[in-house]
């Protein structure tokens, strides 16, 4: 097949597969934003590997024209990491639910932060376990009871942004999926960021979550919109001198503090970003070939172990 010369458009990222989300599901918007971001960045579909966990969210890759891996519940990060390590040239994206990412997959969410492999992780924050019929997810606040729950939550929610920062993510942002333009933009920024980027993607689940609805999210409280852009309030999450530990810590602390704002006001945008060495860059020191050639293309089949054997003699 010849290399495509024309600019890639939204349609190039669409896979015509029967969709099984509920009609009003917020996932449609996320799908749209991801496709737009890829088009915006003109990344050829065959260079994209889209990984997902299990859940309504997990079905997303099936609707994207890109290599799609719909893995296991909670296992999206190590899978995506493996692919990226094997082929650095790929744009690797991981998507999944808040149950998938913060419940069963929590250990992998956290430990991926430590690695800082150059990829993007978008967690769909809908407050519930969608595909298993609306149990409370780890993002649901204590005392909340969605229509799908028999009793209110008696555990605290965890704070995705604070945890992402505590575990080393070098990009942590929140987007609201129904604001297509802004959400697309954040996704593009996340993809372009070098290192592991994390997006807390606010998603409506009209079927089960009657608390975090479009109306609630988009309404004004005391005349101010509940959802607001951090940048609009002069917030700057970017570390300008990553070698300056003090700046790094200050920016982290600032981001964590702001991340606790969730109620009458909900901040959107980039909470924190720093350009630190990626895992791949660290590997280049050990494995110089890593800098030039994707691992899968290394001629490992040509190895001889004869000399190695002799070291045992």
């Amino acid at each position, binding site marked *: 097949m010849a290399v495509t010369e024309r600019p890639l458009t939204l349609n190039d990222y669409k896979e015509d597969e029967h969709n099984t989300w509920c009609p009003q599901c917020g996932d449609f918007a996320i799908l749209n934003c991801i496709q737009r971001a890829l088009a915006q960045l003109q990344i050829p579909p065959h260079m994209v590997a889209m990984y997902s966990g299990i859940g309504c969210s997990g079905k997303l890759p099936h609707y994207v024209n890109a290599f799609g891996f719909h893995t*296991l519940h909670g296992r999206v990060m190590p899978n995506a990491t493996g*692919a990226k*390590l094997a*082929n650095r040239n790929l744009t690797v994206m991981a998507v999944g639910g808040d149950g998938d990412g913060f419940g069963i997959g929590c250990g992998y969410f956290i430990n991926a932060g430590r690695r800082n492999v150059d990829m993007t992780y978008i967690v769909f924050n809908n407050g519930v376990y969608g595909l298993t019929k609306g149990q409370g997810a780890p993002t649901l606040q204590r005392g909340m009871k969605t229509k799908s729950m028999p009793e209110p939550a008696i555990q605290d929610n965890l704070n995705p942004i604070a945890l992402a920062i505590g575990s080393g993510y070098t990009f942590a942002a929140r987007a609201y999926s129904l604001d297509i333009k802004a959400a697309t933009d954040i996704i593009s920024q996340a993809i372009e960021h070098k290192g592991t980027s994390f997006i807390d993607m606010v998603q409506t689940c009209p079927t089960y979550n009657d608390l975090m609805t479009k109306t609630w999210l988009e309404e004004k409280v005391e005349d101010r919109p509940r959802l607001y852009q951090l940048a609009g309030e002069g917030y700057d999450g970017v570390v300008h001198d990553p070698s300056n530990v003090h700046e790094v810590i200050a920016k982290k602390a600032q981001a964590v503090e702001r991340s606790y704002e969730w109620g009458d006001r909900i901040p959107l945008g980039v909470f924190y970003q720093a350009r630190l060495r990626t895992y791949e860059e660290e590997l280049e020191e050990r494995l110089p070939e890593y800098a030039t050639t994707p691992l899968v293309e290394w001629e490992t089949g040509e190895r001889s172990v004869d000399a190695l054997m002799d070291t045992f003699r």
Partner: protein
Amino acid sequence: MREGDLTWLIGGPQGGGINVSAETFAKYAARTGLRVFANIEYHSNIMGEHSYYRVRASREQRHSVLDQVNVVVALDEETLIGRKHAHFTSHRGHVAEVESGGAVVFDTATKFNPETHERKDVVWVGLSMMDLLREALREFGREGDANRLRVMTNTVALGASVFVIGGDIGGLAEIYTEEFTGRRAQIGEMNARAAAIGYEAAQQALGGRAPYDLKSMTVGASLGAKRPMMLKGYASCGMAKLKAGLHIQTYYPISPATDESVFLESLQRDQNVLVVQCEDEISSIQMAIGAANAGARAATSTSGPGFALMVEGIGYASITEVSGPVIFLWQRGGPSTGLPTREEQGDLLFALHPAQGDFPHIVVAPGDDQEIYEDSFEVFNWVDRYHMPAVVLLDKYLQSSYKTVDELTLDNPVIDRGPRFNPADLQNGHGDGNGHRGGYEDGYLAFAMTESGVTPRAIPGQEGGIFWATSDEHNPRGHITEDATNRIEMMDKRMGKLELAAREIPSARKIGVYGPADADLTIVGWGSVKGSVLDAMDVLAKEGVKVNFVQIRLMRPFPVQEVTDALAGAKRLVLVECNYSGQLGGLVREMTGIHIPQYVVKYDGRPFSEEELVEALRQAISTDDARIHVSHLSA
């Protein structure tokens, strides 16, 4: 002493340097032209607990250890008299294992008084090791460092050992001076000197009469063109992986698997291989799958507790028809955390049914270093050809036993990456293997039906090769469907590949048959018992008992026909396994209907010694005991 067969044992606290000493001694013996088989027993502990290492040096290659030793070197009191405080101990020390006329080298600093010991028929060689070391260091003006260098008292003991066995001290010195060069040359020289002083001290203590005569053993022994390698199974495994073109190994530390990963890690720069330490075994296997998705030859290595966390990954890799990964399962004593540093072949049935549902995967269990090398190489071709994950079953005994090996060879050292998608094929209309298109009109289909059941596989980055993979049941394009007909076709496709593998994998890789065809007793076994079985067969053969051995190596797809044929004419069958329940026995019966009426089992965390197995086999022959339970009554 058995003719041409000498066993030397060193015991001491963990962290006290017995490993290095024993391996130095093993090398020494090997360089005299003898063959060596050695093994360590140690605790799941960092420092202080008792461990010991046996080195068996023989004219012919042996593959197991002997319980009876000729020389014991005691670096601690426990080696001499066992453990005092321990509840429930059966460990009486290793002096009990010395043959009559054998020798015990010990440190007089332990305050142990040989006179109080019940053994009057052994030669006691008590040396003041620290004084001897000081003497050696003095010559280098480093007497003051004696405490810091106290681990070199082991060298003194080694030197003494060389005298005791009637060896030539020059060979030992040579090892030290070869090993330490450049800035570290002095260390080599000091060791060489310490060894010589130990030698002389023993000579003096024994009035110049060595109980053993190594030189007579080595008469006629020659080293060949090259010295033999001194190998442990993890290295044979690691080298096979490198040879097979491994791109990435993921792991999480666990005994006894870690050594293999650390070995590869140490070769990262030289061999250009990526080794990733993960946050746990779930991550290890999933990362390996992700890398395999992307086209890499990917492996992970673990032991039982880690494997228990990998099982979901095996099912996932299987339903998505990934080319791999290969999981190297180094078994240890179970269940649960169990006996982390001890031997057991307890994970066979688990490895065979490791997850929910019916799905294909390969399980192979090599029995010695050469087989480890072959299987660890070839298994990567299998996963690439059949698009399924594989498990290589190994164990602590294979991992840690240290022996002379002349060569590791492959009859067909060809790397076959299996059916891969080629964009050009797509234009010819058969990029998907030209199979059932399931309603899709064009484009590549990663799960299209093909004659063989294997669909050429694309990898991310290949234009035209976009596909989807899901752990749910899926259609030829890889999208979810719950359609009944598709389900059946997909199950048949996946499971059919296992039959394909069964047809294509050569018989020689499936089973091994050793010994005379007309044997009176046929042993069935697998994995690391192979060595003990071969040695026991030799002993029995000398007694005129004809025994043969059917080793089952490929566990899945199970070689039904080969095993049935091999066992068909057997006069008397006996199973030998290093586990409680005789897992292979059940498998053989399930697969072939053949009932093995006698089981020889051992499940105390130690491998079969040659004598134990010989005795158990004698019992199998002379009685109808269904369950012959071998137990190790040393430490």
